[in-house]
């Protein structure tokens, strides 16, 4: 009887495949699956003639065949009627749409990507460097002697004497200039590491973005203009930009860049935010250019570094940086 079922199944599947319209399929349904005279139903009806030992397995096989054929018939019916509007069956359009999981790109990655798109349009390319680096690349070549208090500013994680986890993305400046001649127009996003404990604004590993421009005739005016252009494209045309003097060993003059944004409230009112510090920047110190063998009397440049996680905090109203690194699905799932 199992063999008979198998044969019936093959035969029916073959017939379904050859059927051209719904009418033909309906005739096939009656022939194979019909309650009264259907051939598969017939097998089920004859179960009684089997021994009690055989009965369950054959019964199960018959039911499976019936189910398989019903599905196949339905599939085929769908195929032959696909071209025509469904009018016979009323569909419940109040049902929620059929769902799939929605994935998401990390909010910090999104910020990096948005920043990158703007700089890409300003002629920048991305450069990469190692996360484990030497004191030379992380400090000395960047005009930060280890016996200067500036080297204290970033408490660094070491692997061995002289070998460390980069505390900023600035070593990529040196590595890139060593490898390529001017003009340089790069951005270097990447992870950096500090000897910090976790709190609302610190994690030991976090993302940073570096930017570097070196060419003839690059001035403080270009520096200001390009970063202001970036800020207006990123935060909106009403954004004000302020440059404040600061100190970084590898830039001179150095600046901190603040923005004041215009945000639109829910009632449509526009409101100015406070000044918010968004990046450290400055003209590349001639000593840095000398260290990579560029002629610092001929070439000038500017550089910046910013923390995309901080920008993401501002963008999404996140108060605690740790949320970005806990990777709770309920948090990440909001950024689809």
């Amino acid at each position, binding site marked *: 009887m199992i063999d008979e079922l*198998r044969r019936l199944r*093959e035969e029916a599947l073959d017939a379904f*495949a050859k059927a051209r319209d719904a009418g033909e399929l309906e005739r096939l349904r009656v022939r194979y699956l019909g309650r009264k005279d259907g051939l598969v139903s017939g097998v089920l009806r004859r179960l009684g003639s089997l021994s009690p030992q055989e009965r369950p*397995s054959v019964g199960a*096989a018959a039911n*499976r065949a019936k189910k*398989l054929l019903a599905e196949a018939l339905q599939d085929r019916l769908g195929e032959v009627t696909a071209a025509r509007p469904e009018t016979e069956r009323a569909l419940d359009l109040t*049902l*929620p749409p*059929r*769902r*799939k*999981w929605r*994935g998401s*790109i990390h909010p910090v*990655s999104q910020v990096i990507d948005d920043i990158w798109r703007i700089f*890409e349009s300003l*002629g920048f390319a991305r*450069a*990469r460097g*190692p*996360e*484990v680096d030497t004191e030379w690349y992380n400090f000395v070549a960047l005009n930060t002697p280890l016996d*200067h*208090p500036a080297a*204290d*500013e970033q408490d660094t*994680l*070491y*692997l061995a*004497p002289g*070998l460390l986890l980069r505390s900023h993305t600035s070593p990529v400046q040196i590595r*890139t200039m060593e490898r390529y*001649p001017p*003009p*340089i127009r*790069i951005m270097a*996003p990447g992870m950096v*590491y500090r000897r910090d*404990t976790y709190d609302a604004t610190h*994690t*030991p590993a976090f*993302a940073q973005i570096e930017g570097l421009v070196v*060419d003839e005739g690059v001035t*403080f*005016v*270009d520096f200001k*203009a390009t970063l202001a252009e970036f800020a207006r494209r990123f935060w909106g045309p009403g954004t004000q930009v302020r440059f*404040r003097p600061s*100190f970084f060993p590898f830039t001179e*003059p*150095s600046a901190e860049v603040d923005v004041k944004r215009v945000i639109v409230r829910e009632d449509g009112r526009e409101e100015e935010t406070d000044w918010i510090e968004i990046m450290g920047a400055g003209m590349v110190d*001639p000593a840095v250019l000398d260290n990579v063998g560029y002629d610092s009397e001929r070439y*000038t440049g500017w550089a910046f570094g910013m923390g995309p996680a901080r920008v993401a905090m501002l963008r999404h109203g996140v108060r605690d940086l740790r949320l970005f*690194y*806990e*990777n*709770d*699905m309920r948090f*990440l799932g909001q950024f689809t």
Partner: protein
Amino acid sequence: MKVSYRWLCDVAPGIGLTVEEAMARLALRGAPVEEVEDLAAGLRDIVVGQVLDARPHPNADRLTLCRVLGPDGEVPVVCGAPDVRSGSFYPFAPVGARLPGGFRIGKRKIRGHFSQGMLCSERELELGDDQAGIMLLEGAYEAGAPFATAAELDDHRLDVEVTPNRGDLLSHVGIARELHPVGQGGIVLPAFPASAGAGAGLEGSFARGGSESASAGVCIRIEDPELCSRYLGAVIRGVTVGPSPRWLANRLRAAGARSINNVVDATNYVMLELGQPLHAFDLDRLADATIVVGRARPGETLVTLDGEARPITPEMLMIRDADRPVAIAGVMGGRDSEVSSESTDILLECAHFEPKQVRATRRALGMSTDASYRFERWVDPATMETAVLRAVELVLAAAGGELDGEVIDACPAPWEAPVVSLRPSRVRHLLGVEFSSTELVALLAPLGYREARTGSDVVDFVIPGHRSYDTLREVDLIEEVARTYGYDTFPSALSAFRPGTVPDDPVFQLEDRLRVRLAGDGISEAQTPALGPPRHGDVPLLNPMSADESHLRRDRLPGLLTHLERNLARGVRDVRLFELGTAFSPGENVAAIPRESARVAVVLHGRRAPLQWSGASGRFDVHDIARVLELIAGEACPGGSVVPAEACAGGRRGPVLDGAPLLVPERCYQLVDATGAVVGWGGEIRAGAMDLPPWAGTVVGAEVVLPSSPAAAVAVTARELPDQPASQRDMAFLLPAGTGAGDVLEAARAGGGRLLEEAEIFDLYEGEDLPPGARSVAIRLRFRARGRTLTDKEVDRSCRRVLKKVKGATGVEPRS
């Protein structure tokens, strides 16, 4: 640097800036205020009360009944102090007032008498530790006036962020100078209350010498002129060491310093005012009344002021007496020679120490002090004489005594102001704005940069002492020009740029594509640190913050799994995470740089689709991770294939955790690239490898090594669409246990020849009606030829070839 706003106004009387204006200007000068504290905030309710009369409480020995004149007229007050003076003024908290600690004064009845307010002690107002009695205000006041204003306590403490290059801002005069450049009123050093004006008469009274000098029976010798270029010593005899006068203690407190005693406070005051650290020795404790500035001798130790025995080494510069070290130069004094209440004769030290030496010493000792912080950032050598005279004057005013002899001046290496040349052409080259020589002089002169010589295309500037450590190059002066001109004054105009020589990094491009692909597949991007606890093969850190983050991970998957664990622990049951990050493996030898590789890792747990009306979608298993591996391979590894780990002889089994494979070996795939190298793994995570709640189901994960130089994407050559109908055949096979359905499919594809367009498994079935372990597999084959319709004969022939190939490769025959 903590700055008292009142103090700032005292040294720059013409400053004319409110607290807010001062903060705004400091921000624009490169020294932003991180925090501002209203020091009178807790004293708002406190007023000056005048005690009209006071008499002993009839029912208590230690209580006094007073009539106090306050803002609301006369009120009765019961006071806990026995010595209340009639007619005197005290800080008074009327009924309803709140003390700094938050306590609210109510109307009370004490031993039968009403008390409507409280006369306060320093401690109750959090102004000092003196709780002996209520705080008597010297002088005349208006009863009922706000106490903070009357006592000059209405001050603000600004916490100014000072960058490492600006040691000159670590004093009130330094901050005032920055806020208020020369020529707009200038800096004054205010007279001390109760000062006899001793400082004024001292001018010029220095016992000048080279490496050695002496006066008043005290000899100072410098052995290392390179590390200490000058040492001034003032001998003051007959001091009375005790508590500081209230104004001095208040001033120090306003600037965030603690009052210790009148002599130490005097030295701290001068340091906070002028930036020059000073030290006071008990002269009687210095053997032979001698000071020697030189290196430590081998085997010496010193117990410093804080009671710590410091392991000093011969590289360190020490202040010694005739026998032994008495202070670590520029860092901290020794306990034995410290000024105490028994001291009568003292030696004030005012020295200049080399910054790098102080930094090396204090780092070697693992300490930092107010003095070392300033010395390693440079202390103005031109202010030393002013500082020592100011300190002498203040000690005399606060602690009495007399200056003995001249100020000893050992100066083996007199300081000379450096001269730096500035080319207007270079200014324009860097800043993009044209400045004439005259304009440059006008911009720099107010900051103390004196024009020495102006040539046709260069101006030489003499650098003032307070900037003579960080302003030694032309570009340093150019920064000063930009800062003074005002960063915001510069125009902001985009100009044309040349394209750079650096190509956009292809790994970033690959990561971009993977992000979009995986997020599009319903997976969320995570970011986890590359740091973790020690595991086999991980790279150790030298100075980790904690054991949990002491190693750089060799693989990303274990870290991502801990984040999956955390989600499950929080009750989040459907978790789909991916991550792009760097993995580290040890270099060739211990000191070698670890190898880094970019990775993508994925973990999946739970339902394949969200809960919904159309029914359950099943749960993630290894077949899903195989698909994700294919997805990744499509971007990262063109030409690669995903194969069961078994099939890949000699390949790595993937990440290892706690000595065992992270993935279940029988449920594991490998991604093999076009050259045959294994570049990725994916499969079911071994249950013991994770800490999961009991309800958790199967977890699957994958990790792929991204190529360090991904091939540029090759454009697809589009195939023409078929112009002929296809012939379709279904075949069913009965697979014995151990035969792979995929192998059968593979064989069928291989056997179908050119005419076979597509072959897929469309039914897989196992059940009681089949032999144990056996499965029935149904394969649908689609045949098509270009340009003509296939005949049944041709299709039959192809089918026979398929069957033959399947039988040959797997031994499986079609089901009848």
